[in-house]
Each structure stands twice: as structure tokens, then as C-alpha cells.
């Protein structure tokens, strides 16, 4: 066994108060640099090659043949059968921007955020969900028992269970390709470099640079989403440059790891339990007296 995998990864996400690399916190003694995606939606041309390449590489089944009527988006969202999803939003440019009020067609390729604080990981009872040596979050489909706890735990609605199978599936950030030194399939195929893969620190610098470039060009609506380690998920491993409010793309504006309040809830539950025990004891000993 290599050193990177010498110690079994800790199943529960590290404390929200902890900072730094999630792979460190998970207990990898030595591990690789944390990697992720920077999806620059300002150059996405909506070709959906990412969706197709993802399915081809990972053997993900089709998601049904339904015309949704939601512009050119016929997959509808991320699910167990769609790990990259391109949103198409027909809207108007914000008045403040250059091209004031013009019709615009936003396209954005969404994916699992590989959160620093990943609730799916916290709630998985079987250890199917793991933090990898790359700092990414992966479901091991041979371990998953299909309990589905991870599905509502995800603040982004990324994970889904596959019908007729029951197990949960999501983006693996092409764990197998990473181990072979290859780019994830979606990033490899993206013709315009809208999907960029690399060490997270590099990506954050690139994103800042691109953001400044756009803002200098008068695109005041440009913003980063999920890049901030101070946010409710401790920063995403897959973050975005958006041209409008996150809600416009169907993304939650202020995502919070759903297990954030778990320690506090447990503390309250413990207090309540202690209270119940105390009451019971009081009753019991009280009668003796």
C-alpha cells in the first residue's frame, strides 16, 4: 500500500472550525495536492460535450428522453444519471452591464462541488462515501447500500439514487483518471476551457484573474461562486464564475453544510437526554425517600 492510502480515511468530515486541506483532516499522512474544477461559465458555449464525455467514460446511463421545454436543457439537473449538467437560461443582461438589458443566453455546466465540509460524507453510514487523497469526494458503488441519507444531505441536490438499482451516484471527479494522471473526462473534452481542472490553489488564482478581467471589461455582474473557504461549506472543490445571481442558474445562494448543526443538535439531544434521565432518577429516588 502506498503511503497516501496507508491509513483508512476518517468517515466524518472534519470540524467546521478546522481550516486547510480536507485530505489532511481526513487523516491521510501524506497525500496529493487538492484538486478541483473551476467552471468559467462566461466562455461556456453550451455544447454539452462535458455531459456526453462524463457518461461515456463513467458508463452512466441515459437520463430518459424527455423534452423539458426549459430552453435547450433536457437533462434538467444533476442526478444519479447525470453528473455534469449544462443549464440554459434565457434572460436579460443586468442594466448595469455593458449591453444593457440585451437578451442573453447563459450556459453553465454544473457538477458536484466536492465540498470542503461534505455533508454526504458525514451522513453515510456504510463508508461508501469517502474523501480521496486528492481531496475529492467519491461514492464507492460496491459499498453503497442505497440508504439514501446522502441525497437530502447535499445542499446542492447533486446526489441521486438510480432507479432500479437504488444506490447513490454522483461525480467522482474521474477518480480513476486522476490516479492514472489524466484529466477528468469533462475537462478534457471542453472545447473552450470553460471547465478547467487543476490544483485548487491555482484555480482560485486563475479565477480571480478572470474575474478582474471581466469586471474591467464592464461585466459587473461577473462573480465567483463556491470559491470562498469561509462560506457555509468551507469552500467548494468545484467552483464557478457566474454572470448572474446563483439562483438564476438554479444554485443555492448561500449553501450551508447540512450537518453543520449536528454537533449542536447532538449536544441539545444530550442535554435533553440527561434531563430525562435526571427526571427519571429524581422520580425513582424521590419515591424512595
Amino acid at each position, binding site marked *: 500500500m502506498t503511503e497516501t492510502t496507508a491509513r483508512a480515511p476518517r468517515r466524518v468530515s472534519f470540524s467546521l472550525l478546522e481550516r486547510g486541506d480536507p485530505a489532511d483532516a481526513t487523516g491521510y499522512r501524506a497525500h496529493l495536492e487538492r484538486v478541483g474544477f473551476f467552471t468559467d461559465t462566461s466562455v461556456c458555449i453550451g455544447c454539452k460535450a462535458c455531459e456526453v464525455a462524463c457518461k*461515456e467514460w463513467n458508463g452512466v446511463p441515459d437520463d430518459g*428522453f424527455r*423534452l423539458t*421545454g426549459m430552453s435547450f436543457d*433536457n437533462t434538467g439537473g444533476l442526478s444519479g444519471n447525470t453528473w455534469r449538467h449544462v443549464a440554459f437560461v*434565457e434572460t436579460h443582461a443586468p442594466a448595469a452591464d455593458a449591453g444593457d438589458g440585451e437578451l442573453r*443566453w447563459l450556459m453553465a455546466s454544473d457538477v458536484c462541488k466536492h465540498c470542503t465540509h461534505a455533508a454526504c460524507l458525514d451522513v453515510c453510514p456504510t463508508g461508501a462515501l469517502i474523501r480521496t487523497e486528492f481531496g475529492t469526494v467519491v461514492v464507492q458503488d460496491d459499498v453503497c447500500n442505497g440508504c439514501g441519507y446522502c441525497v437530502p444531505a447535499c445542499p446542492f441536490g447533486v446526489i441521486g439514487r438510480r432507479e432500479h438499482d437504488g444506490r447513490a451516484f454522483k461525480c467522482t471527479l474521474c477518480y480513476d483518471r486522476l490516479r492514472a494522471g489524466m484529466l477528468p473526462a469533462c475537462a478534457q473534452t471542453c*472545447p*473552450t476551457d470553460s471547465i478547467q481542472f487543476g490544483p485548487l490553489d491555482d484555480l482560485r488564482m486563475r479565477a480571480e484573474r478572470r474575474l478582474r478581467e471581466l469586471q474591467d471589461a464592464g461585466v459587473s455582474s461577473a462573480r465567483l461562486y463556491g470559491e470562498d473557504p469561509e462560506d457555509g461549506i468551507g469552500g467548494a472543490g468545484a467552483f464557478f464564475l457566474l454572470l448572474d445571481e446563483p439562483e438564476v442558474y438554479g444554485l443555492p445562494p448561500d449553501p450551508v453544510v447540512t450537518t453543520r448543526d449536528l454537533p449542536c443538535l447532538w449536544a441539545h439531544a444530550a442535554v435533553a437526554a440527561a434531563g430525562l434521565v435526571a427526571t427519571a432518577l429524581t422520580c425513582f429516588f424521590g419515591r424512595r425517600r
Partner: protein
Amino acid sequence: MAECHPVGFQWVMEAKARGATVIHVDPRFSRTSALADLHVPLRAGTDIVLLGAIVNHVLSTGKDFRDYVLHYTNAATIVSEEFADTEDLDGIFSGLIADERRYDPASWSYAGAPTPAAAGARAWPTGARGGTAETDPTLSHPRCVFQILRRHFSRYTPEMVEEVCGIPREHFAKLCAALVENSGRERTTAFCYAVGWTQHTVGVQYIRTAAILQLLLGNIGRPGGGIIALRGHASIQGSTDIPTLFDLLPGYLPMPQAGAHDSLSAYVASFVPEKGYWADARAYTVSLLKAWWGDAARAENDFCFDYLPRLTGSHGTYETVLAQLAGECRGYFLVGENPAVGSANGRLQRLAMAKLDWLVVRDFSLIESATWWKDGPEIETGELSTEEIATEVFFFPAAAHTEKDGSFTNTQRMLQWHHAAVVPSGDRRSDLWFYYHLGRRIRDKLAGSTDERDRPVLDLTWDYPTHGPLEEPSAEAVLAEINGTDADGNPLASFGALAADGSTSCGCWIYAGVYAGGVNQAARRRPGREQGHLAPEWGWAWPANRRVLYNRASADPEGHPWSGRKALVWWDSDTGRWTGHDVPDFPATTPPGATPPEGARGAGALGGDDAFTMQADGKAWLFAPSGLVDGPLPAHYEPQDSPFANRLYAQLHNPVRQVLRRRESRYGPDPGAPGSEVFPYVATTYRLTEHHTAGGMSRWVPYLSELQPEMFCEVSPQLAAERGLTHGGYATIVSPRAAIEARVLVTERMRPLTVQGRPCHQVGLPYHFGPNGLVTGDAANELAGLSLDPNVHIQEVKAFTVDIVPGRRPRGPALLALVDDYQRRADLSDETGTAP
């Protein structure tokens, strides 16, 4: 381009990142528009007005690149005084023979110097040969091309653009400013187009207008310039170079004509000019005949020139369909083509196939063109019944590109080799396998025949080595044959070595060099980062690995680059040679100021500033004195089916367009005529990123099918309100010929325009769908008619008229009744719309 060529569009995005301005002209707001700096919607079928008005803008403001125009184009050449323009004849050119629906182009010649064209209709114009065209370098002679151009385009004004195209003047002004500011010594502009420009009854002239504009702005033969034809398939460029077109031999040699070209000499004399690279066409032809018939091709038998088939007329795809209907064409090969969905008027295509004795379909899946005899729309309507169809249909499963070796030639003329990754499974076979073994078997059957008519087949050099369990022929051996060999059997390095005496052999003269040194140059994959910006060692571009054609024009008449920034090739006076980043497209040692010696011919007859080396006069043609059958200059004509009158001229349509008089392919009433209100909207067809052409490569692939799972139409909210269409519901779309149904997408991306003072609504129709496959829908091309461009016989599917109503279409015979009813209401007959 983002919509249909997403991989190529990465370079547009890269250019944009470096500061390029991207302008998208398209009736609908597509994925390309979403990324463009400016989207200019226009009424489908009016681009000549838009481009012509930009030409007028450039000419009337004096923004043309004068040095370039003067030296490299025919602006100064004097045209025959016989010539009369559309200005003089209200929309037609001199020479129209209306009852034959054709022009006699004799009057379009240069004064005293008939000049054959390098492409298109190649025959020498009538008149005495050998004259030299007069020129007026001051460009002031009233019959010089420049002045004719000024007069011709003067009526193409911003007001006309607004009136005809529906483009507001301020949009047009922005467009003009962007183009003019980005052209000249320091900057260049490129045009990219696809079938939105070609699929019209005046399609070739759309490209001509763009060519005139690019030449006036000095954007041809220079880095970052050009007119780039975005092809519809991976190797459509390759399939015109080594043609699947009826009227061409490999390397754009014209196909000989019955009666006129009885000998090699008569053939060559009919089109070969004195000057430029085409002057050596005899060498190209003889070498081709040697490649095909080897030792059997000898000087004493005219190198087997008699073995070549002859044209007896126009045999384009639609003429072939008519010949099938007439019982003249009895057998049909469909190879990677699905005309039941992809060609105009699908019904006529299927009715024609039902008259065949046999039909061979080679494809990946059972496409509509393979199953129409049992489940096609005409079976449902009762027009055909399976029992009564005598056509024997053979289906052969095809191998994919991953299962065979071969080359792709892209729009840049670059060949890139691909290697088979896996052996095709089951009965799947490559096209090369199919034709090689078919030929082998036919030759076996004919072996020993003494019948003279079997000689062309028996004498063919049909000896390619095979390999593997399937006996796959060697694609590289074919490439080597195309490249050709010298007298000693060594691979040729370039077409310059070709001889007319039968000592050289070459399957396609422009491809000579692709196997230079016995190496497959198309298979080179040296990464761009390891070489210069033109990456000459990535693949191989014809001719002679030149990456930019006519690149002599990238230098000024003295041979210096127009600017350092735009340097490509230049004259090195120290070595006395042309040199540069690219392979110079010019005789290597002809100095910039050279005047050709008296009696010189071929490349030697090119003067130092004759940058357009394929042209018989060495100049790019702003005015085309020959080559086109519908006029030496572009003129706007309305599409065959149009709700709007021609505001430019009294002449409504291209007078020499090809039309039919058939019940199955009726046309709409002329604009304003009684019944024209029955088809009030403009429809245009197009592609989606997620599907490929007629669907054979995508509607059977689940990962693509799920992304666009059903036929739909796109309409504006205003049209939806006008017709009661609901988003997500169904609509029935009716043309003068057919009715289809589609789900409705109501979107602001479709924008109503104001044309001739009234609203113009356009209906967008993707053409990928058909009744077979994982995802289905009615085929948009059912609606289209057979009105064709007369130069290239392409169908007009980018602009026609329709009605649209809510709800699904009727089934069975009721569908025909619906179309009949529309035809009655519009008072259509087989004659409607067919006048010149």
C-alpha cells in the same frame, strides 16, 4: 459556429480572448450569438442585400484597400461594351434567354479578351482567344470593373438593409464600422459561413458577395483573413477534392462532356488557360489517367481518356431523383446519406426510391432511407403500399471512423490521418473495404471478357494490399496512389513534377506531396508548441502544404509584408526567392516586379503581382467574366417562396434558378398575389449541437438523443400570441407541399423583424428528426421544395414560407387532405411560382 462546430469554435473563443470582435449574423439567436459581441438577426434569404450594402459602404466611403485592390484584383480590367448590368435591365443581366432559363454569358467578358474561369462553368467563353484585357489603373474608366461595381452596388443602401433584411440602421452601422476598422495593413477580418449562405436559389452569389467584400478590404491570402466554409461533415472538403460530385474529377478537373470532349486534347483545350497553374491541366489529367489505368494508359490510346464516363447533362442529386421518378435511374447507392430525412422534399425522395429496381444503403443503423418501404410516411398516408413496391433494398452495416484508417480533410484543406482503433464487429465494414471488394468481385466476374465496354473496369489498377482478418485494403496504399509517383516509381514531392507525357502518375494533383518521401505526411502530429504558429508539421495541407492560399497577397506589390504584424511570405532579394512563415503560393523565383516574357505560359506567365495563381489573368475576380451561370455579379433575388416583394429590382427571383413543375413540389404564390396570405411566415432549417445532419449518427446514440429528444420548432412570443401556440405544446407547420408537427419552444431568441413596414415572423426548424431511432419527430425537410441554385444545384431550404397553427397534424390520408386544402386556399397549381 458554436452551435454546429463547437470544436472549431474554441479558436474563435481564443481569438475573442485576445481581443477579436465576434459578430454573428443569423435569423435566430443561437449558441453562437450567446458568445458573440454582436448578434445581427435578419430575414432569412436576404444576405446579399446586407453584404452588398457593406460593399457599397466600403466603396462609397473610399475605405477599400486601394493598393491591394489595384494590384491583386481585376478592379482595373475593362469589361466588354456588350455587357448590361442589373442596373440597366432592372434586375437581370445581359444575355438572358428567358424561355430556356439560362444566360448566354458571352457579353460578360473582358473587352477583347475572353477568359476562362478557374472554377464553376469552366469552358472558354466564346470569342477569339489570346487577346489581352485592357486595364485602367486609374480605376476611372466607366467600364472598368471598379466603376461597374460602384454602380451595381449603389442601390444597396442602409435603408434597403432595414427595409429588406429587417436590420435597423444603427446595427448596420456598427457592423460596417467593425469590419472596416478591422481591415487594412495591420488588421484582417475572417468570414465564416455554412449552409445558411449556400442553400438558396442564389446561394453561390452569397459567397461571391462575401468574396468581393473581402477582396475590397484586402482580407484574402493574408493571415487572419479569408472566407472559411464550415463544412457539414468531417471530410466534406475531402469529398470535393476527391469528389463525390457528378461534375468533377479529382483535383477540380471538370468532368468531360459527351459529344464535346471526344479526345483528351479537345477536353483540355475546352478549359485550360494560358497562364497560372491551371495551364498545366493536361499533365494533371494524364497523371490521373495513369493512376487509374496504369500501363494500359498510353500516349497512343490517349491515356485511356475514352474510359472516363461523360456527362450528358446535369446529374446532381435532385436531377437523379427526377430520373428515378421517370424510370431512367434504376439503382441507387446511399452511403452515409439519409435523403428521406436530410434532403429537400422527403416525400419526393421516397416516391423516387420506390421506383428503383435496387437500393443499397450503407449506414450504422436502419435509417429512414432504409425502411421507408415498410414504415415510411407514405405507407401511413396510403400513397405507397409495401406489397406494391418492387425496389429491392440491401442494407450493409458500416464501420465507424474509429474502425478504419483514413484521412479527414478539413475546411483549411488540411488532411489529418486517423488510425483504426478496433476491428469492426459483425458485418460492419469500411467504405474502402466495400468498394474494393465489390470491384474485385465484379472484375472476377468480367475476367476473360473480350467485350470492349468491360475494358475500363478490367484495366483499372485495382491491386491494393489487404491485411487483417477482414482483408481490409490498405488506406495508405490508396493515399500513396493519390500522391503519385515519378518515372522511376518514387513518390512525388509536389504537383510541379507532374508531366503530360505519361511518365508520372497522380490520383489527385493537388494532393501530390501528401506522401512525399514515402511518408504519410497527413499522419504527422508534431505538437504546435514544438513548432511555429502555422504548425506546418501537423498533418498536411494541399497544395504543397500551404496553409494560406494565395499568400503572395500577404505581401505588397514590392514583396514586403503589408505590415510586420501580418507578415506571412515575402521576397528575399538576397537569395532571389520568396520565403516566409508559410510555403509561398507563387513561383519561387519570380520577383515581385517581374513582367512575364512574351509567349510564356503556365506559372511562368504569372507577373510579379499576379497573386491569384489559379486565375487565368492572375487576379482575383471582383467581377466574374465567366464561371457563373447566373450573373457576373451578385444581385438580390427573393427566395422561391417568400412573403415579400423584391425591393431591389422588378425581377423577383433568380431568373435562371432551377424549378420543377410537379404536384409533389409546388411553390407558394408570389408575394402579394392572391393566396400569398395563406403562407405568411418565413421558415428556416438548421442544426443543433447535439445532433448530426439527418440523425443517422446521433438519433441512435442515447447520450446525444437525451440532450435533444424530440422535434421542435422555435417561435417568438409575438408569433405564439398571434397563432395561439403554447410553450411545450404541439404545432402543425404547413408549407405549400407538406405538413409536419413539432413541439413548440416559445423563446425571445426568435425575434420578429420589421420588413417592408410590416412584421416578419420566422419559424426555426431543426432538421435532424425523422420517424426512426431513439428519438423521433417529423422531418423538417418534408416542407422544403425543389428550387435549386443553378450553379451547384443545391436546394433552397434556408428560406421558405409556411403557416403555423396549434395542435398536432392529422394522421393517415387526412394529412394529404390538409395539404390539399391549403393548396386550394392558396390557389396553387404546378405552374405557380415557376415563371423566370
